Structure formats: C-alpha cells, structure tokens
C-alpha cells in the first residue's frame, strides 16, 4: 500500500463494505452508537499501524474489530458503565436508544459477555469456521466451541425459548 493515502483507501473500502462492517460492529457491540464507536476505534488502530500493514487493510480492520470486541473494549470505558448504571437523565428520549430497544436481537446480544457475543457474531454473521474464530479471538478451538455453546444457550434463555415446543425462536420473548 506504499504511496496510497490511508484515508482514501479506507474511504473506498467503507464505500463498498461499510454497511456490512458496520453491521458486524453493531452486532459485536450490541447497539448502533456503540457499533459506530467500535468501528471508529478499529479504524484508528488501522491508521496507527498503516505503515506495517501488508496486503489487505480490510482483513486487518476486521481482525481489529474482532480483537477489540472480544477484549471487552466497551468495558474499559468507565463512562459507558456509568451511563448504564444511571440510565437516562429526566424523561428525555434518546432516539438511538429507542431504535436499539426496538431491535430485540441487539437487546439480547447486549446481555451476553463480550467473548460470547463475539464468538456468536463471528460464527453466525461473519460465518467464520471455529478455527478462524479461535485465531481471531486468540484462543483454542475448544474454547470457541464452549463459549459459542454457552452464548447460544444464554440467548435461548433470554429469549424465553424452551425445547419443549420444538420450535425455537431466537428473539420471541425477552426477559
């Protein structure tokens, strides 16, 4: 990528793949606004490593997204934890939150620990193999299997699913 301006390259990349990358980030973060912040954080990392990136910047950007998500990126920001505790001031609605709340899948995903959420999004949205997920998350295939299994089980519980009717629905009822 010698001689190419990183802003131009990444602008072009996002023009083509932006919606898919943002959807991945939104799923990994569990919300639209947090997803945008996650994607921005990953882009900043790419800028920081631009000179050392060899080959495909999209691959590096994706790996960075996965690493940040699995690493509990949001948890490290104290103000997000504080906002979660405080709720919203007064009764003023927040449009972004309202959109997120309407999206039951995001609401359920937000309740999973970062590693479970990351494993599930990588397996079922990014459609990576267990080995690829293990590489992206820096763990063993066995760990991916167990984390994914626990995450799916938790999603089913949260959505009020039971095996008894044999027709599981990912986001039927919310707890």
């Amino acid at each position, binding site marked *: 990528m010698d001689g190419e301006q990183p802003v131009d390259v990444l602008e072009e990349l996002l023009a083509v793949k932006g919606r898919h990358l943002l959807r991945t980030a939104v799923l990994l973060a569990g919300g639209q606004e947090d997803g945008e912040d996650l*994607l*921005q954080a990953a*882009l900043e990392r790419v800028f920081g490593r631009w000179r050392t990136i060899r080959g495909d910047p999209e691959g590096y950007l994706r790996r960075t997204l996965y690493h940040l998500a699995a690493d509990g990126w949001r948890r490290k920001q104290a*103000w997000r934890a504080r906002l979660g505790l405080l709720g919203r*001031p007064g009764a003023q609605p927040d449009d972004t939150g309202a959109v997120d709340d309407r999206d039951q899948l995001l609401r359920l995903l937000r309740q999973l620990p970062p590693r479970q959420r990351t494993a*599930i*999004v990588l397996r079922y949205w990014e459609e990576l193999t267990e080995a690829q997920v293990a590489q992206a998350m820096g763990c063993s295939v066995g760990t991916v299997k167990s984390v994914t299994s626990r995450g799916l089980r938790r*999603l089913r519980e949260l959505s009020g699913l039971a095996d008894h009717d044999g027709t599981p629905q990912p986001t039927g009822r919310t707890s």
Partner: protein
Amino acid sequence: MSTDFEQRLRAEMEQVKVSPRPGLVNEAYRSYRGKRRRIRALAATGTAMAIVAGTAAGVAAATASPASVPAQTTAYVVSHVSSALATSDEISYTIISYGPPDNTQAVVYNWQYGTRFRLSETVGGRPEMDNWGQNWGKPGGGQTLVLYPRRSWARYGTAQGSAAVPSFACQTYGTYFFALSLWEPANLSSVIEAGLRCGAFHVAGHQRVDGVDTIKLTGISDGKPAFTLWVDARTYLPVQMTGGRDVMQFRWLPPTQANLAKLTGTIPPGFHRA
C-alpha cells in the same frame, strides 16, 4: 443446538438496522491524529511520562528489595487493612490504568471523601468522562456527568443507580475487582473489604513500592494468582493493586481546601445538557 435456531439467528442478524454515519473514516483519522498530538505534547511536558513511569516504577519497585517488616499472618493484616479503610479520614485518590500505556489506554481518576466522589476518565490522554456528586443512591444525593465524546452533560438524582456492591462469587472476585471498583466510587473501600471478607487475599511478603514499605497480598481467583494488593506496612492503607495489565494506584490525601476542590469537576463551555 438446533440448526433452525442458528438459521433464524443468522436471518435476524441480517435484519438488524444499521445506518452508516457519513465521514466516519475522516472522524477516525482526526481522532487518531489528535490522540497522537496529545500523547506527544504530554510526553514533551513530562506529564505522560510521569504517569507511565509512576506505574512502571511502582511495579518495578515492587519487585525490589524487601523491607525489614516482621512477618504477619494474613488474618492480622486483613483485619488491620479493614480497620484502616473504615477509619481513614483522608481523601482517597485512585488512578486506575486499563491496558498497556499506548494511545488507547484508559486511565480513570477516582476521588472519594465521605459521601462525596469524583470519577473522571481519559483515553489516550483525551478526556472522556467526568462524574462527580455525593450520596450516591441516598436521599438528597445527586451527581453530574459530563461526556466529552458527546459534548454533553447531565444531572442525575438518586432514583437511579444503586449504592450496593453487586453480588459475586468469592472465587471470581479477582475477575470482578476492576469492574467492581467502577461500580460505585464511594464504595471502593467496600469493594476491597468485600475481597478481604472473602478470604481472597493472602500475605505474600514485604516489598518497597514507590519508596513505601508495603505488605504484599496476593489475590487468588479461580485457583490462580489473579491480582496483587500492596498495603502500607505502617498505615495498612492500600498503595497499589494490579490485575493483569490493569494497575490501580492509591494516594491518601489530607482533606485540605485545595484537595477537596478536586472532588468537583467543571462543565466545559459549549457542552449541551442531555
């Protein structure tokens, strides 16, 4: 796990609404450049180096010469630490660094005095949040929260939030410690005391940290050494705590006017009320 469930999960992921924000790449680039500039500026003035060096020196010093303090049992030390935390009349000032010292490192500054608290955060040297108030979760309490990324601020009463330290299993205390410490600033001492009550700490020797003679307590979580707490061998107040790459440094400040003023932040001009 049902294939049907997985298929529906995929389908619902496809349906999640997203609306790409225009100019995200440029925003990221500006933010990256800004962080670099701030890091360089801080390093030039020595401030950043002092923070980083302080952390590094603390950890390095912790591995240096042991002090000539007589051996004490864990129960004795734990009892004295609990007592010191309960009776201290100083302002507790804590600096918590999350992750390696690079331009993504989050640093949280936490002041506590009686019912008053302040918690502010920087990421890569850039202010992210400032939160101060008193009587969290109690009648007559309130707090102000300033969010720099959103250029907004808000005041909260006491109806929301909780003063209670959330429950946790003792064997996973180490995993939760750094998250717990952000839960309720005025309860930082309670968080440490909860660990002491759990039997999560064990005396592991005596060391010097930042020139202070300390007693080193190792925390076990899930059967493995997970975090370390150093307490002043004279006052029994915490000096430093580490867990993974996260470092928490404690300072105990006398309640002078100047130090008490640090418990209140300011709302930057131009910020809007949320």
